[in-house]
C-alpha cells in the first residue's frame, strides 16, 4: 500500500514531502509484498481541487488518491473543507478548478481529448451511481417505507426488477440488524437506525466507493456505536470508503489511512499510527490535543 499525493499544485507541500515518504515506509511494513512498482489501482483521484463559496476559498488545491479497498478517514476542524471535498467527489458541488476521477471517469464532465465538457444534470446523475453517500442528517425519504427507500433508486435508475431488489434489500437490512424494520417509516426509527438504513440504501446501488459525511455527528452518544459498528463491518468486506469524521478512535482502529485537513489543504496524510499517534504538523497536534 502506498500513500500517493500529487503535490504539484499544493502550496507549501514541499515541507511535508519528507513526512509522506516516512508514511509510505510505515504503511509498507504491514504488507511487505507491495512496493512502489506494484501499487494498487487508485479508484478515486482528486487533482488540484479548488472551490470557493462567495469570496471564501474552502478548498485551496487538494490532491488525493484513494486505492481500491482502502478506508480513508478525513479529520480536521469544522470549516477545514472536509465536507466540501466529499461533496465534490460525487459532484454535488461543482469544483471551480481541478477534477475528481472515479474509476476512470471525470465526475461531472465528459473527457474529449484535452477538454472537459460539462455533463447535463441527468448524465451527471448516472455517473453518481458509482459513488454512495451517507449524510450527517441521514436524509431518508420520509414518505417511503424503509424497504421502498432501499428499492426506489436501483429500480428507477438502474431499471432492475423489484423482486430481486427486495431480496437484496432484505439481506442488507439483516447485515445492519434492521430486518424487522423493512415496513416501518423512517420517522418511527431512532437516529442510529435511520443512519444504518441510509448505509444500506447507498449500498443498494452497488457503488464503487462509499462516502460518509460525519455519519455519527447528529446522533445521540449511545447510538454512535451501532453506526460505527456497521461501518466497520462494511470496511471488512473490502469496500472503498472515505469517511469524514470526528471519531478519532474509529479512525485509529478502522482506517488504513488518515488525512488531516486544515484551511482547505491536506496537511498530513498517512497511516493512523503516524497521523494520530505521532502527528508532525502543528495543526494536527493542536487538533488532536483538543479531541482526546
Amino acid at each position: 500500500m502506498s500513500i500517493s499525493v500529487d503535490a504539484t499544485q499544493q502550496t507549501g507541500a514541499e515541507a511535508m514531502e519528507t513526512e509522506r515518504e516516512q508514511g509510505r515506509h510505515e504503511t509498507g511494513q504491514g504488507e511487505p509484498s507491495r512496493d512502489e512498482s506494484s501499487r494498487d489501482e487508485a479508484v478515486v483521484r482528486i487533482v488540484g481541487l479548488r472551490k470557493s463559496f462567495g469570496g471564501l476559498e474552502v478548498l485551496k488545491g487538494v490532491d488525493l488518491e484513494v486505492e481500491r479497498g482502502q478506508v480513508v478517514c478525513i479529520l480536521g476542524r469544522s470549516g477545514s473543507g472536509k465536507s466540501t471535498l466529499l461533496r465534490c467527489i460525487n459532484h454535488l458541488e461543482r469544483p471551480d478548478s481541478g477534477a475528481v476521477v472515479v474509476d476512470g471517469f471525470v465526475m461531472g464532465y465528459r473527457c474529449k481529448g484535452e477538454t472537459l465538457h460539462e455533463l447535463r444534470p441527468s448524465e451527471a446523475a448516472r455517473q453518481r451511481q458509482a459513488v454512495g453517500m451517507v449524510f450527517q442528517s441521514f436524509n431518508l425519504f420520509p414518505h417511503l417505507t424503509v424497504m421502498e427507500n432501499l428499492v426506489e433508486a436501483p429500480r428507477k435508475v438502474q431499471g432492475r426488477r423489484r423482486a430481486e431488489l427486495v431480496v437484496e434489500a432484505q439481506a442488507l437490512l439483516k447485515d445492519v440488524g434492521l430486518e424487522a424494520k423493512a415496513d416501518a417509516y423512517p420517522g418511527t426509527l431512532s437516529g442510529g437506525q435511520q443512519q444504518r438504513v441510509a448505509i444500506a440504501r447507498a449500498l443498494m446501488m452497488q457503488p464503487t466507493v462509499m462516502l460518509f459525511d460525519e455519519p455519527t455527528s447528529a446522533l445521540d452518544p449511545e447510538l454512535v456505536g451501532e453506526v460505527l459498528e456497521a461501518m466497520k463491518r462494511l470496511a471488512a468486506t473490502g469496500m472503498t470508503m472515505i469517511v469524514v469524521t470526528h471519531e478519532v478512535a474509529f479512525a485509529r482502529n478502522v482506517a488504513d489511512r488518515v488525512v488531516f485537513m486544515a484551511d482547505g489543504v491536506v496537511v498530513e496524510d498517512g497511516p493512523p499510527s503516524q497521523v494520530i499517534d505521532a502527528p508532525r504538523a502543528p495543526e494536527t497536534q493542536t487538533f488532536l490535543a483538543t479531541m482526546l
Partner: protein
Amino acid sequence: MSVAAPTGAARGRHAHERLAADQLPPTSVVQLKHPVRLASAVLVGLVALAVLYSMATNENFQWGRVWFYLFDPQIMAGLRSTLILTVSAMSMGLVLGVVLATCRISRNPVLSTVAGVYLWFFRGTPLLIQLIFWFNFAALYPRLSLSVPFGGPEIVGASTNEVLTVWFVALLGLTLNEAAYMAEIIRGGLLAVPKHQTEAAQALGMSPLMLFRRIVLPQALRVIIPPTGNQVIGMLKYSSLVSIIALPDLLYSAQLIYSQNFETIPLLIVVSFWYLLCTSILTVAQRRVERHYGRGTPGAPAPRTPGSLRRRIAGTTQGGTR
C-alpha cells in the same frame, strides 16, 4: 400529624393534608368538575334550539316552496353549470399554476419576474372586477386575430364578442385568478421539501425529473393538498360571481326565477342547500386525500376517535378533551 413543615404552609398548603412518612396516598379519586363548561353547553344548546324552533315555525321561510324548488330543472341545470365551471376552472388553474410556480422558482430572472408581476396583478385585484373586465374586453380589442407580429398581415381573426362568450369569459376569469393562487401554494409546497432530500436523491443517481416526480413532488403534495382543497371549496363558492355576467350558474338560475315571482328567500335557501351539500362532500374528500399523503409523518391527521358527548362535556381529563 405534628410534622407540618413551615415551608408547606408558606406555599398555601394545609398542614392537615400532609401525609405521614409511612402513610400511603388514598386510592379513591374524585375528579375535578367543570361547572362552567357544563353551564355554557346548556346555554348555547338552548340558544341553538331557539333558533331552530324559530326557523321551523316562521312562515316567511316558506319551507314548502323550498321543497318545491329543490329539484327544479332550472336549478339542477344551474348546479350542473356551477360544478362544470368549478372543475374546469380549477383544473386549468392548477395546470397554469404549476407553470407559474416553476417560472417563479426558475433561475431565469426574466421568467421569475414575469411570473411575479402576474401574481402581483391577479392576486391584487378583486375577482369580480377581473370578470367584468374580461366581459368588456371588446372595448379594448374589438377584434382578436393571429397575425404576423408588429403590424403584419392577419392569419386568422374574429370579432372579440364572438370569441368571448359568457362561458369563455367566466372560465378565463376564474382560471387566470385561480392560477395565481395555486402558483403560490405549489411554490410553497416545493420549497417546503428540504434541500437535503434532493441531495440524497441526487447522490443515489436519480435524474432531476425522476427525483422531482418520486421524491420532491410526493412530499410537496402533503403541503400543497390542504390549501388546494380549500381553493376547490372556495372556487365552488366564488364561481357564483359569474352571475354578474349572466352565466346561468346555480345562483343566477335562482335569480332568474325569483326575479319573476319574488320568492327570493326560499330560492336562496335552495341555492345555499346545494352549495352546502357540495362543500360538505368536498371537505370529506379532502380529509381522505390528506390522510393518504400524510403517510410516514407523525403529525398527520389520524382517524378521529370521539368520546361520548356526555363524557366530553363532563370533562374527564384523560382522552376526549385536549
